[in-house]
């Protein structure tokens, strides 16, 4: 088990955004976290990547409780959360270089990472001049360049054109296959992750309704899993 949460809740003031989440992400899997807008996906992913602490409960990473100021685990995690932030006046190359200085661990070369995400020729351009899709690609490069064990991606296909979406899906599989990474990918569009995920968790109004493997789903819903997703979140979602 790569990541496990034990009764994780998150409260803002007295409003419970996440309610006793018990999530299990197997080593080497691509885990798709599905849920409509406002379900709490980003809130959950921030805790899984060690950015915020849960209000209640515990996140376990490789079997150990994850703490936000833990210097040892941070290099083992890579994440893209919501709208990525960069040092905008610096080039893509410089941004990755500074990231690696902080991470201080084994890594791909900056050229390799930029090539993988298709930004080879944009390396010297200031990030301020990047398009939305280019920023998204760079954010993904920054998340995997230090070769983490866990990659947490919050709506990583945002802003990408169809070609970019296809490339990115292939990249996710490559990162899992070639570098043994475990991936957690969130989306509010089922179609975005049903082709890459091994397992799916459905989050709705702060509750994890179910966790199910794609294999099981394909057997039970041979016509496509839209019906399943719709059934789960139907009503007021």
């Amino acid at each position, binding site marked *: 088990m790569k990541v496990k949460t034990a009764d994780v809740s998150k409260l803002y003031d007295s409003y419970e955004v996440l309610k006793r989440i018990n999530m299990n992400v197997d080593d080497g899997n691509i885990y798709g976290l599905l849920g409509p807008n406002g379900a709490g996906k980003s809130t959950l992913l921030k805790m899984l990547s*060690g950015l*915020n602490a849960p209000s209640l409960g515990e996140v376990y990473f490789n079997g150990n409780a994850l703490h936000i100021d833990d*210097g040892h685990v941070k290099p083992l995690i890579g994440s893209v959360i919501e709208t990525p*932030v*960069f040092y905008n006046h610096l080039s893509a190359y*410089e941004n990755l270089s*500074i990231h690696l*200085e902080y991470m201080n661990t084994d890594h791909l070369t900056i050229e390799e990472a930029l090539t993988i995400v298709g930004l080879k020729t944009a390396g010297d351009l200031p990030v301020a001049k990047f398009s939305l899709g280019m920023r998204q690609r760079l954010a993904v490069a920054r998340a995997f360049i230090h070769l983490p064990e866990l990659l947490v991606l919050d709506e990583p296909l945002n802003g990408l054109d169809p070609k970019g979406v296809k490339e990115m899906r292939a990249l996710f599989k490559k990162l899992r296959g070639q570098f043994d990474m475990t991936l957690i990918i969130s989306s509010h569009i089922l179609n975005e992750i049903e082709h890459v995920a091994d397992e799916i968790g459905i989050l709705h109004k702060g509750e994890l309704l179910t966790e199910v493997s794609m294999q099981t789903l394909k057997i039970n819903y041979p016509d496509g899993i839209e019906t399943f997703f719709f059934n789960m979140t139907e009503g007021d979602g």
Partner: protein
Amino acid sequence: MLKLIRLEYRKTNLRPYTLSVIIATILFIGFIYLFAYIPRIDEDPELLMFAEYSTVSGLLILVSLTTYSVLASAMFAKMVIDTFDANSLTLIYSYPVRRSAILLSKIIAVLLFTAAAMMISNTVVFTLFFLTESISPLVNDTFVSSVVLDALSLTLLSMAAMSAISVTAMTIGLYRQSVPLTIISTVVILASTNNVFMEVLSNPVILLVTLVLCIVVLSVSTLLAAKHVRDLEVA
């Protein structure tokens, strides 16, 4: 820590700040000759205090303290308030470095830059002024070595004061997550402490007390800022 400080400089575009320092130094040279020249404009006896080196040096130190405190708080606004805002936090919190260590490296980076700039700038201005004074003096006072020593100790004290003032303003700005508040706090603190500074000139005991006070205020502000940062959450 050294590596963290070096990274802060790499992440920041220092050119506008360096340019400000150069412009400020040129203006200070103009000011110090103006201060020295004032009693000669007409023979008003009330302006006679300007005929002393201690007044001329003291005024220049005040101008320099004001300028560099504002510069430091502008740098704090950019390098601390902006990076500790709820969105940008994602970036620094993904690094395997304690939050308080990042904050501390930023504070040291800003203070090193501004204190060094202050030292260099004051040295250039005073050296030039004292050189021309030793050749053809504008000030009526007798030019003795203690004048140089006073200028030096005042420069050191104002470096400590600048650090205390700007970090306090930064901490106030950090609690409200506000860039304008950081700058306004600097100006308000400066305005309310100017009097103390003029007293310092004549009394070495007050000078020492002020120095100790600056160090205490600097430490307390830094601790309060670190405490605040520890509890911050990514939005």
